[in-house]
């Protein structure tokens, strides 16, 4: 009987042909290459800076700025530091973004719903609005508002005025400035208390409805609470609030609160432009909820308002929120165009003037980019959190 020849074992694959080893190997090579490239860039920059005797580091942030800024939300003067300039610019950017987001959302929702209106004229007007503002470059719109519209305003001496309270001229809109007395803090405290109270009221109303089916007019009750309570406290404390009115002195108005035309232009341009996109998102969101849902709600006996509020909108929000986040991010990043019309945002005062006065381009630009990245990521996080709350919970 012949011996069974042993089955030859397959030759061991050499390690360079082993897919697992290869995968890891290539990843290591890629990582090393990226890190080496980064190190080379860093090293090269440092060598060149040293060779040309250009100062580097962030020490400049604590030196004196020596220039004026037209609008700042925090106290600022020529004797403040470059670091302070950074915060002034950042707050101005955030102000524009926040105002822009609020107005864009409001206009966007109104136009979006108007586009679905059964009224032919309203629907067509909304379409025209969207098509015009969506298709003209933002920078041109900005110039239009700033150079064409707001430049037609009268000079300070011929200001349009509303009694002796508000004045409007080419230098801006002058409003009375509120002056708070020490006891005024009671009013915002009351507002806070009213808001917390409304939240509990809403919870209680929902529990009651779930248990007994009885509804409670939560909205009006909360509104009354939020408006009424602070007002009540305010008058009980003896109206601790005075107004400082603007007055024409020499060249300009002095005192009061001023909205500069640069701010008005950039907010108008950003919100009107972005609102056109938001309107389309809202329309798409509402149309994405099938009509059967509405019919089903009607057949359950819900009224049209309730149908919209309880059935259609919660479902359309799921479609609306992700692209809405994108628009918010775009708006924030577009706010850097403010530099073109002399609005003192971060790009204008910090990566413009400060960069020029100090010559430290790398540090200044890096800091500015880091700020925009942080703002964008924060908006993204907030909106994602909201989206998760709104998302369909599968049970």
């Amino acid at each position: 009987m012949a011996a069974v020849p042993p089955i030859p074992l397959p030759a061991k694959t050499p390690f360079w042909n082993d897919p697992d080893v290869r995968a890891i190997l290539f990843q290591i090579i890629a990582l090393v290459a990226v890190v080496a490239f980064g190190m080379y860039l860093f090293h090269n920059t440092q060598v060149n800076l040293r060779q040309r005797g250009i100062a580097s580091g962030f020490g400049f942030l604590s030196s004196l700025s020596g220039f004026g800024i037209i609008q700042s939300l925090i106290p600022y003067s020529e004797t403040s530091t470059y670091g302070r300039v950074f915060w002034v610019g950042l707050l101005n950017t955030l102000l524009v973004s926040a105002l822009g987001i609020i107005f864009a959302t409001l206009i966007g929702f109104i136009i979006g719903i108007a586009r679905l209106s059964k009224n032919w004229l309203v629907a067509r007007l909304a379409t025209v609005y969207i098509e015009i503002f969506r298709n003209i470059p933002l920078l041109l719109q900005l110039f239009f508002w700033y150079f064409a519209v707001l430049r037609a305003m009268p000079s300070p001496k011929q200001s349009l005025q509303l009694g002796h309270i508000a004045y409007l001229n080419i230098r801006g809109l002058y409003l009375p400035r509120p002056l708070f007395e020490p006891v005024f803090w009671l009013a915002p405290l009351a507002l806070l208390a009213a808001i917390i109270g409304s939240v509990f009221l809403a919870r209680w109303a929902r529990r009651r409805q779930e248990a007994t089916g009885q509804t409670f007019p939560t909205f009006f009750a909360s509104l009354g609470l939020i408006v009424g309570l602070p007002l009540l406290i305010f008058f009980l404390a003896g109206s601790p609030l005075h107004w400082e009115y603007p007055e024409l002195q020499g060249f300009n108005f002095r005192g009061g609160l001023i909205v500069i035309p640069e701010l008005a232009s950039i907010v108008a341009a950003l919100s009107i432009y972005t609102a056109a996109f938001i309107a389309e998102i809202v329309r798409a969101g509402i149309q994405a909820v099938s009509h059967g849902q509405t019919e089903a709600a009607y057949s359950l006996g819900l009224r049209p308002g309730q149908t919209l509020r309880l059935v259609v909108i919660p479902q359309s929000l799921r479609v609306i929120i992700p692209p809405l986040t994108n628009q918010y991010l775009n708006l924030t990043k577009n706010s850097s165009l403010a530099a073109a019309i002399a609005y003192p945002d971060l790009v204008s005062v910090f990566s413009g003037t400060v960069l020029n006065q100090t010559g430290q381009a790398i540090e200044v630009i890096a800091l500015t980019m880091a700020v925009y990245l942080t703002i964008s990521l924060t908006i993204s996080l907030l909106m994602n959190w909201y989206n998760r709350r709104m998302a369909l919970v599968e049970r």
Partner: protein
Amino acid sequence: MDVCRAVAAALFGDATKVKFTPLTAKERFTALQSGEIDVLSRNTTWTLNRDTAQGFNFTAVTYYDGQGFLVNKKLGVKSGKELDGATVCIQAGTTTELNLSDYFRANKMKYTPITYDKSDESAKALESGRCDVLTSDQSQLYAQRVKLSKPDDFVVLPDVISKEPLAPLVRHGDDEWFDLVKWSQFALVNAEDLGINSKNLDEMKKSTNPDVKRFLGVEGDKGKDLGLSNEWAYNIVKQVGNYGEIFERNIGQDSPLKIARGLNALWSKGGLQYAPPIR
């Protein structure tokens, strides 16, 4: 611009061999630092910080300027001291911004700054009444006034609030290039000093004055010291002219600006323009 042409004439023997890159006040330093341009010849003020921490070398002053104010005649302002509370238009990224705040602070006055990127935008803002005053170097103010739609409604105030020596600048680290730009400028001033201009150039070659002979390369090897041909200065004056010719052509009597020489006259005529000898 003519400074760059002069450098090209010295270097290549051809004043057209220069590439111009238009930059705003904000972009200019980064462009020079990064090597996008080799020499920045613009209305840049020579300051300590720029000469040291920003890594530049200023060559020689081309124009002695000072900051002033351009206002609408309707305001009835006669002096800078009457500007308390005014709204002022400025160009971003300039020494002007700093001088302005120093001036108002020193005189205990208040102002509202509006900072534009481009000088045209600030001129438009002045015209529309967005600001009361436009501030910049005086030479610039004259240039902008001419461009306004109604130049006669505006007036440059007599106050000069700062020293603004305008000079071309180069990067640290290339001394030969620094020398070359510097001496091309000196050649322009020396030419005027010696009475050499683009018209009498060839006649002057026959001159017996040793200074003129050295300048035109008839005698000596001065071009070699710079690493150039001995005709370097001849080429400059031939193709670009001397300092006086450049001045009159661009901003003086032969131009719409009609700025007087003033501080920028030769030292021998009571001005500040003075160049070391070519020797």
